[in-house]
């Protein structure tokens, strides 16, 4: 029955035309290069760079190289390296460090925990709990686990939410410009005003 059907198809002269078209298109497609729509990671890396500009670290932690530590995803950290190459923020040189264990977190101004590190997130957060480290992740529930900034893809756009209580706990301050853009802000500013 199927072969009869195939014969019917082949009898129709449109077939060679379509086959040609499809084959041609595939060949033409090979000529096509990447369509430059950024990935989620591309945008997140640029966000991390921007956070460096809109967050103020307490004195003592605002000197020297600004280390952006990345837990998980080597491809993310290499992307981030490209973003911060030859960049300075307030006279500080930027540096990307890949970390794989919680005891390596020393001296991180920003700690990014990739979604693949979900099993180690609590441990990593614990390790930087009392340090002036901005914690950022695209893990769901990151804020309720004590993280500071959580990325979320909403309608194909990367947005972020802020947990101010955690930010205050780390003695960091955020510029109002950053908070204005946040999708949601929970917690209170040190002045006591609700956000």
């Amino acid at each position, binding site marked *: 029955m199927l072969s009869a059907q195939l014969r019917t198809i082949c009898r129709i002269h449109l077939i060679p035309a*379509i086959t040609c078209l499809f084959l041609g*298109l595939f060949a033409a497609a*090979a000529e096509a290069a990447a369509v430059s729509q950024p990935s989620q990671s591309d945008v997140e*890396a640029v966000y991390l760079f*921007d956070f460096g500009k809109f967050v103020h670290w307490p004195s003592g932690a605002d000197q020297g190289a600004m280390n952006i530590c990345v837990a998980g995803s080597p491809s993310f950290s290499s992307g981030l390296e490209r*973003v911060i190459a030859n960049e300075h923020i307030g006279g500080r040189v930027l540096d990307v460090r890949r970390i794989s264990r919680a005891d390596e977190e020393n001296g991180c101004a920003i700690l990014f925990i990739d979604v693949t590190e979900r099993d180690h997130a609590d441990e990593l957060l614990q390790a930087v709990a009392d340090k002036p480290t901005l914690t950022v992740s695209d893990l769901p529930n990151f804020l309720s686990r004590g993280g500071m900034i959580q990325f979320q*893809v909403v309608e194909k*756009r990367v947005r972020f939410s802020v947990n101010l209580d955690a930010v205050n706990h780390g003695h960091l301050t955020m510029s109002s410009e950053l908070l204005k853009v946040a*999708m949601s802000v929970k917690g209170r500013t040190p002045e006591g005003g609700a956000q």
Partner: protein
Amino acid sequence: MMFRRQHIWFRICGLYLLVAGALAVPANASALYQPRPVVDQQLKQLSLAQLGDVEVTTASKEPEELWQTPAAIAVLTQDDIRHSGATSIPELLRLVPGVNVAREQSDQWAVGVRGFNSQFSKGLLVLIDGRSVYTPLFEGVYWDVQDLVLADIDRIEVIRGPGGTIWGANAVNGVINIITKKARNTQGGLVNLDAGGPVNRFIGQVRWGSSPRTNLQLRIFAKGFNRGAELNPGGAPYDHWHQERGGFRLDWQPGTKDNLSANFMIYGGISGDQTQIGQYIPPAQLTVDGEQLVSGGDFMLRWDRQLSHGSSVYLQGYFDRTNRGTSQFTETRNTVDFDFIYNFANLRRNNIILGAGLRESPSNIVQTQATVDFQPHQINNSIYSLFAQDTFQIVPNRLAFTAGTKLENNNYSGWGWQPTGRLLWTPKQHITLWGAVSRALRTPGRVDRDLSLIGYAPGFTPPLFVEVAGNPHFKPEVLIGWEAGYRQLSGQQFYIDIAAFHNQYDDLQSYGEVTLTFPTAPYPHTLVTEFYDNGLRGVSNGVEIAPDWKPFNWLDLRGNYSYLNIRAHSKPGFDQAAFASSYEGSSPEHQVSVQAILTLRRGFEIVPDYRFVSSLPALHIPLYNTADLNVIYHVKEHIALSATGRNLLQPHHQEFTGNNSNAVGIRRDVFGAVNWAW
């Protein structure tokens, strides 16, 4: 003659390939090393607010929540809709595994999930922005009046398998959830014009969106189309069709946690129809060429509130009016519905959802033929429901168990339970295994209970008439469904979704008692009446496999294969073999579709697809395969041109038998479109 033509084609083809191939190799190599920093530098120029507005490609085609869904779910995104070149919602559903879509004629469709397909497919629930478009008249969906400005659809979620626990009665074989974009995402203007032939003659869609205040967004839209007839092998074409609709959506955020939306839409249209109708004087069974007049509208208000830690609550209410005048009868229906859902997400290991709903849907039938009636003419189809469901994380982020039930009351069959139990295991990121067992009900509709449809059987003295009649004791059909599924994303490039099911049906609709009477009006005749009854049991088994492979960033290859086997048999005391074989043979045993999405440089997108549907023995519809091609060219940022060919492999093919019991040929169709968005 034929050979010569092929020969020329192959020569042109060969030449083209040679040229394209010569260009291809070096360009492709450079693509591999295309410097990514260009993208990074562009992004770095953006402000924080602009960065939050950059559209990104996501790692998998499926949204992240999908990995946490213990059900067979497929999501059609706006990109999928645009790529398909489809001009109606049922055509879009052809892309989804496990969904049986057959065009009966220009304006009529048979759409089923996992079988039991007919123009009046029962047990498939369809919602547009939470508004049920399932009619209790015949317990199905009138697809001809379910339309939208397709560019304003955010996504279509198709859940195969029983969904009665959350969605309520009639979500037996599946649920289709059509969700439109928020007004925030449809700002600016849109004009979309399609023209072609011989079938899709003209489609015009316009939309305008604005934001009068920062927390208030609006869109207004209108759509109209004129469609030609398909091929009628038995005579003159009859299914010309036009329809117009318009409406608005308003979204208002009074605070950061609240969203209020108002949706309004009205429509009207006329289609040509051919129906068989019995006649007393003189006694005859007529094939009537008539017109079907449809109109209606809906207004919906919805309030969403985000609570702390991801908890949320929503309340919605809508009014929906439908009018349908056919050669057989006229129905007017006014539905008022309220739904409330509370989602507790801030519990440590539990996610509890509670819901309640009520619906009043009075229907009024005007009898226009002596041989077609519903008694009583007026009835109120009502539903009251409560549901509760909890998802418990046995091992957080790894193993979760979901249990819940719906308790629902309807005016025909009273209270019914629809429980489910589901287990979800995520051994690693991007691997999901799930299993479920659920009970779902297909409640009686007006056809099962109230119908009287009389036909004439020639050749007897005194004249013989045969009636199909509703049965006041018709019970709900019951499904116990067993399901399992597997999803995996490998290396960001290969995604596969596999689902299998074993469904056990009881009390399926059939005929039952037959009576012989001798009415004297309008003249003495013999009347054989067959009453609907719950005389069948059935089992369906099936598998759906849907791979999606992105070997290069410009190529996305998607396929799906669906296998379905239905066996039905009479319950003790019934002899309904004919009815059973119509269940068995009206849905395809095998369905295959393959789609390639090519995203090329210089603004070209090319999407060919191919589909195969096996035969429908009960309807004498042979197997068919056909192909579509959609070429989109983005001339500028705001303007796109497209050329679309549908059903290209043959001049026409049959997909289903309509209600004039003669299968029209669905024709090859070619059209072009301009899309201007600003």
